């Protein structure tokens, strides 16, 4: 019995020491990580609006929507110009977060891929800004967003990787556009 107690105490000491060390490191790095997240958000917001301004503090959380987690309003001297949506791809095997700005009629102004957990190297292509250009300016009722890559380019990348992200990104952007057309619901 004595032996078991001794062993458990030793194990406990190791665990406590480990937890303490980790909490110290966490305390040191957590503000840094938080700062990076906020910075990334502000840069993304700046990139997404060419006209007017979106206040990083004006985030409104959306509950119970599968695709939109929150949104910001774009204002120009009190006049409402559009919305910036935080979109998430309904994820199995490759969660994606996209930030996209829309005009009031649902037309896409710009979009940035925030992070994706798709296998490194696969989804990389979508992070390039030119990739998003195929979607920009579309989304209003006159000009719908493309869902498949062959709708915008003849030269479809036949290697799978590209299609994966194209469909992911396009359906997310379309959901965002529908969210705005549906009166933010």
């Amino acid at each position, binding site marked *: 019995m004595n032996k078991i107690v001794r062993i458990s105490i030793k194990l406990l000491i190791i665990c406590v020491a*480990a*937890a303490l060390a*980790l*909490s110290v*490191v*966490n305390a040191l790095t*957590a503000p840094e990580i938080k700062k990076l997240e906020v910075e990334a958000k502000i840069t993304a917001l700046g990139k997404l609006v060419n006209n007017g301004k979106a206040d990083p503090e004006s985030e409104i959380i959306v509950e119970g929507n599968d695709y939109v987690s929150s949104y910001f309003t774009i204002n120009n001297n009190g006049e409402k110009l559009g919305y910036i949506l935080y979109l998430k791809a309904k*994820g*199995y*095997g*490759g*969660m994606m977060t996209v930030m996209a700005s829309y005009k009031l009629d649902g037309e896409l102004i710009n979009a940035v891929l925030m992070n994706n*957990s798709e*296998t490194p190297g696969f989804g990389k292509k979508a992070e390039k800004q030119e990739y998003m250009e195929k979607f920009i300016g579309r989304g209003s009722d006159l000009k719908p967003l493309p869902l498949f890559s062959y709708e915008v380019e003849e030269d479809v990348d036949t290697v*799978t990787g590209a*299609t*994966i992200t194209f*469909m*992911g990104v396009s*359906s997310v952007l379309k959901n965002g556009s529908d969210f705005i057309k549906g009166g933010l619901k």
Partner: protein
Amino acid sequence: MEVISDIIGIVFTYVLVSNVILTQFLGLCPFIGVSKNTESAVGMGFAVTFVITLATLFTWMLYNWLLVPAGLEYLKVISFILVIASLVQFVEMFVKKNSPSLYKALGIYLPLITTNCAVMGIALLVVEVEKLSLFNSVLAGFSAGIGFLVAILLMSAIREQLEIEWVPKGLKGTPIAFISAGLMAMAFMAFDKALLMNLVG
């Protein structure tokens, strides 16, 4: 309908599209190490499926009900690995006591599973990265296990055949196993998300 398409989507994704071994490289060590014959491959496959399913269940509860409310997400690695290690230990003891025949079949593979990155990898992926719901997480864990089983079973069949085929001298053994696995992964590239989208919309 939503629920059913979710289920199909998850199963299809974790068994075929993002097969643990062939596209995510999780659990590659046992995949190469234990695939020399079909019998041990099946044993390993079932043992992994069993442990992954339980591990996703327990790590999900631990993460969402304990670590997140307490703001201790940074302890996830240490707590997940301890959960998996003790889970493997318990499963081993339980199986040994209650089903000697099953123990005989799975016994030697169980201790190896603690350091099988498939278990830890899937747990991290579904619980932390994908943030699936409890039911979906367990389903994903189970499907990933089946994906592992499918891949290792196919691999063992290929390797048994390779034993009797002529193979260039330098490539005998593990090298040709890797190359065959590569060709298999190429075949699995046919299962992509576009196909899944057409399937469930």
